[in-house]
């Protein structure tokens, strides 16, 4: 694997290999010496054109546990000056001898351009690009689901027959896109629930069932209910009239939580708007996997970095 840009590029075996290696990485994270010498001498650059402390730290911890040298390049700080182009930055990183670049960018496709424009030899990991994809988030979600279902015995298994309902702003969600391709690849049945304004035009060929009714989806008792973050500015752009109505129609309220089977996992990629798309009780309930997701993020990212950067050049 040269780059990790989109879960749509992954084959089933590749995806399972990443998840299985993440199991090994998880066991490393559970012991006293949490470090492997695997990427000693390799340089990983966290290139963040968009603020996301959580994702950056997760990648940083992952790279450091594999003994890579980590350089943080942030557009918000001083290291990427305003107006400096992606190309200029890429050439700088190339000159520094970066082996891997973890990129977060507000423009969809920027990681693809970085990987394929010929500016840089490094392996590229997409850490979230615009409204396109966030492949490591989807991998950690799949990993979290598999662990909850099968524990450590999940190794080698896919998600055949698991029903996953993703709720919220599908239109602007890179998490949703990456999850749709990956969960489908792993055999899960994916359903999308959102107001029509937040479902993209042109999803007719997506391997999903799409609908508007969260109560109907709850009544089916899915194995996984994944709530997406809602941005306040969507309200101002008339995607929905207001927080109250959104919460009433598409929020995981206490009342809906009570109607879910006890076995349903409640997932959220974070950060959560408590009281908007998810109630505080739902977020903190035993059904919630939110903290597992954070911990698993490090294991999955270690696995991804290993598969991208450990092998021959």
């Amino acid at each position, binding site marked *: 694997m040269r780059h990790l840009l989109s879960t749509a590029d992954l084959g089933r075996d590749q995806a399972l290999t990443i998840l299985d290696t993440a199991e090994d990485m998880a066991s490393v994270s559970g012991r006293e010496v949490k470090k492997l010498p695997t990427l000693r001498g390799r340089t990983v650059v966290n290139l963040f054109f968009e603020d996301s402390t959580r994702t950056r730290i997760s990648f940083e911890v992952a790279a450091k546990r594999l003994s890579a040298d980590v350089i943080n390049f942030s557009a918000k700080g001083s290291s990427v000056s305003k107006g400096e182009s*992606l*190309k200029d930055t890429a050439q700088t990183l190339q000159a520094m001898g970066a082996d891997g670049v973890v990129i977060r960018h507000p423009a969809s496709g*920027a990681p*693809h351009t970085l990987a394929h424009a010929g500016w840089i030899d490094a392996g590229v990991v997409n850490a979230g690009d615009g*409204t396109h994809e966030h492949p490591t988030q989807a991998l950690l979600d799949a990993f979290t689901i598999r662990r909850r279902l099968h524990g450590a015995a999940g190794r080698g298994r896919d998600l055949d027959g698991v029903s996953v309902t993703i709720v919220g702003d599908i239109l602007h969600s*890179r998490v949703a896109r990456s999850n749709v391709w990956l969960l489908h690849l792993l055999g899960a049945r994916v359903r999308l629930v959102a107001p029509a304004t937040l479902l993209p*035009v042109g999803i007719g060929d997506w391997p999903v069932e799409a609908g508007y009714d969260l109560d109907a989806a709850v009544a089916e008792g899915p194995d996984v209910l994944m709530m997406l973050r809602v941005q306040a500015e969507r309200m101002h752009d008339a995607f929905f009239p207001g927080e109250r109505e959104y919460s009433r129609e598409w929020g995981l309220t206490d009342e809906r939580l009570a109607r879910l089977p006890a076995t349903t996992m409640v997932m959220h990629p974070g950060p959560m708007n408590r009281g908007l798309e998810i109630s505080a009780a739902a977020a903190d309930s035993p059904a919630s996997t939110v903290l597992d997701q954070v911990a698993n993020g490090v294991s999955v990212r270690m696995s991804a970095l290993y598969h991208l950067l450990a092998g021959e050049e």
Partner: protein
Amino acid sequence: MTTRILGATLPDGTTADLAIDRGVFVDPAEAGSARRTIDAAGLLALPGLVDLHTHLREPGFEQSETVLTGTRAAAAGGYTAVFAMANTQPVQDTAGVVEQVQALGLRAGYATVRPIGAVTVGLRGERLAEIGAMAASRAAVTVFSDDGMCVHDPLLMRRALEYVKTFDGVVAQHAQDPRLTVDAQMNEGEVSARLGLAGWPAVAEESIIARDVLLAEHVGARLHVCHVSTAGAVEVIRWAKARGIRVTAEATPHHLLLTEDLVVGYDSRFKVNPPLRTAEDVSALRAGLADGTIDIVATDHAPHPAEAKECAWGEAANGMVGLESALSVVHAAMVETGLLGWADVARVMSRTPARIGGLRGYGRAFAVGAPAQLALYDPAAAAEFSLDSLHGRSTNSPYLGRTLPGRVRHVFHDGVPTVADGGLRPADEVAAARQEVVA
């Protein structure tokens, strides 16, 4: 003094000799001794092409293109006249600026440059520009457009259509509802949904065209629609024409050949406004051009410096250069598919755009006494389109690396050879030869 062209194939398929003297076509039988003879066996004689939609970028964006470099690109593509869009800096919204652009064209000599005047001051869509002054200027502007921006305010559009009528001009509308296309990055549909790029829905084009043809009907004005790109827009225009509304429309070469699937690799050479659409849209455009619903092909030649394209898709500029490739693309999309013959190509790429733009001398191709605007094209040649094929200042062509049919061999602008034996002639020679003709 005379140039003789022997055995050229005319657009109607017949073969004839042509002769040019002192800037005009002369009767080959009565022409004096030839200074130069071109063996045109196997070459197609087309009237010099006319582009109603070119961005020459001067003044203001000379790092992208200048009048000189843009008209060199035009000549290389077989063009002898271009209409220069108004979105320069300063904007072509006063008599002074349009006269400056026209003078630059005259000095360069590669092609006639007809400036297009802005409809509104600064293209801001707030109040009308000095349309009368531009019409009365030495540039004698007849086409007005805010291209790049849509004249969105319906009342302002109505006034513009009415006011331009006073000067027998035409408003060329860039049909794009701005509210429906905020941050739009590509055609809205299955590809945009996958790529997570904000969609540019067909309806944003079609609703403006529908409104504008009704406005044109209501006030009895002429309307020209720039770069039609959707099947629905073709339908609306077909309906309007059937109703007798005075609307003309253009399609670009790229919308006749390329589809949105090319965006999948996020290669910003394929980023253009309006965006590349679906294969169904391409077929509808071709059918519309074939049946006359769409009147002309116009390039929307839009040069950008490398740095405006070497970046993430969302940050890249919209636009493609197109003058050098237009004829070959139309050849591939329309002639090789059997939808148009060469006489039709002469109509949609020369005679009709000249008529819409009020440009004289293109009504009767090759007629004795008419200005010698001529392109000799080798339709049997085929080659990979490469950087060597480009002659402007920018290289943002979507065709680099693609094999395209045909090749422009010779071009005469007002009788002055601008392209000879497949090569662009040097600027000083063109300027000197032009002095001779004018004298």
